[in-house]
């Protein structure tokens, strides 16, 4: 039984990060009908920003008081979010907006070009091997009824949950969030209601990128590493989450992200860790076969 709860906790933790990245994918796709293949690389940029900031600050790995550690973590997070937000803005202006609305493969190809540029850029600057991201949060393992949870794992989940709550608030309770939903459904009508669709486009890509950047920081800290190709597998699985959930409800993407994390953890724990990465694709195949619009429905493309 302990094993079950342990895997459940592990699963929720990684699943919450899948959810955050998948939400970014989903946001961009549902608002702009664009698959942003550079999104996972923005996640990678977040991790590298954490690496740069922490090593520049010469943060001592241990021995920091909790409040200082949290302060440093937040600083790193904010800086990463600013950088990835700006990267998102540039990406939107130069790549997404010009290719939006045309043949659906055009932005697909254009953004995959950007992702290659970012991957190679990271390789050039930081080298092809993973770099070690020093930890910031003092390492501490909590044991509850035989289940082990580390402080960094808690930080990861907490960050993910706060981001998702913030996104939900934005989408459902703010004027621009409402406009974003309107543009996702009917951009022409939204424009005729006075919504500057280009501005919504910029906002959306920035927000999605900021989210990916934050996820990159937490994952970089969790695994104490950043690598040029870390976005690949992670991004692919997040993309699968978006496809499986459908792009209609953000709660659906959150749920599928968590589900994927948990199922992967269970498969790793009970069956074989070699099968972990296959879970996502098995799930995708099953859903595409039986319900191609996603489990919870999608807007028409």
């Amino acid at each position: 039984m302990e094993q079950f709860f342990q895997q459940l906790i592990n699963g929720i933790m990684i699943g919450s990060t899948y959810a955050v990245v998948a939400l970014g994918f989903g946001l961009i796709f549902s608002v702009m009908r664009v698959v942003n293949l550079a999104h996972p690389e923005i996640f990678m940029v977040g991790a590298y920003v954490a690496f740069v900031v922490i090593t520049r600050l010469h943060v001592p790995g241990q021995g920091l008081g909790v409040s200082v550690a949290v302060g440093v973590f937040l600083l790193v997070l904010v800086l990463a979010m600013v950088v990835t937000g700006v990267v998102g803005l540039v990406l939107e202006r130069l790549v997404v907006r010009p290719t939006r609305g045309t043949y659906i493969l055009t932005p697909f190809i254009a953004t995959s070009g950007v992702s290659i540029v970012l991957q190679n850029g990271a390789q050039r600057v930081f080298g092809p091997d993973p770099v070690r991201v020093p930890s910031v949060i003092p390492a501490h393992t909590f044991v509850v009824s035989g289940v082990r949870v580390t402080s960094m794992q808690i930080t990861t989940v907490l960050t993910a949950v706060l981001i998702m709550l913030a996104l939900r608030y934005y989408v459902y309770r703010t004027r621009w969030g409402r406009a974003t939903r309107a543009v996702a459904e009917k951009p022409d009508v939204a424009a005729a209601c006075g919504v500057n669709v280009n501005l919504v486009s910029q906002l959306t890509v920035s927000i999605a990128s900021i989210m990916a950047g934050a996820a990159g920081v937490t994952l970089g800290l969790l695994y104490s590493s950043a690598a040029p190709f870390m976005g690949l597998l992670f991004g692919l699985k997040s993309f699968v989450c978006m496809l499986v959930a459908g792009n209609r409800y953000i709660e659906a993407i959150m749920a599928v992200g968590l589900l994927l994390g948990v199922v992967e953890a269970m498969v790793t724990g009970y069956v074989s860790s070699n099968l972990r990465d296959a879970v996502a694709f098995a799930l995708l195949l099953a859903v595409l076969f039986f319900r191609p619009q996603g489990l919870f429905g999608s807007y028409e493309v």
Partner: protein
Amino acid sequence: MNALLQVKGLEVTYGPVRAVKGIDLEVPKGEIRAILGANGAGKSSIIRAIMGLVKSRRGTLTLADRELQRLPPHMVNQLGIAWVPEGRQIFSTLTVHENLLMGAFGQRHAQEVRARQEQIMELFPILKARQAQLGGSLSGGEQQMLAIGRALMSNPVLLLMDEPSLGLAPRVVQYLFDLTREIRARGISILMAEQNARQALRVADYAYLLEVGEIRDSGPARDMEASERVRQVYLGG
């Protein structure tokens, strides 16, 4: 002559197809004008072109001396033109209340927006009753009222209505067209594209007959009702 909306030499093309072949029309302040014509005549294209939603168009469009043709739709809206699209096109994943708020997106003053929402809910009590419901759960007639209410939320000087009667029961259509008189009485001019010539001519002051992208005839509504061509083709003899 100072019409509120002036359209000169409007051409709309979709790829190789010329949907609108150089037309002139105008809407004076305080009038309801109708564009009549069959399906595919180009009526929607004219409405969409005025709203700035069509990529390829030529000609000049002016609203009270402001040129519109280079403006994106959200600026056309901010200048005072609101659109009631063909087929309602309400935001089905937003509530009735949120749909109305979207109509007022370009408006700054929260107080005024609230006041206007109250007015519109008085005009359409059914919307008040269904405020918290998702737009997608409304009936066709209710959605049309919501679409009109949404357009009125921006306090427009000109309302563009695209086929308001489409897909609606006769009694609802009657009610909606009576409503347009009410809207005109509040100082809002209306340009409507409509296949239902009978209802349109009942409320309009002036009408244009559009066929295959060209204006074949135009005149005061009474004259158009009496015209042979209109009678035969659109009013069933």
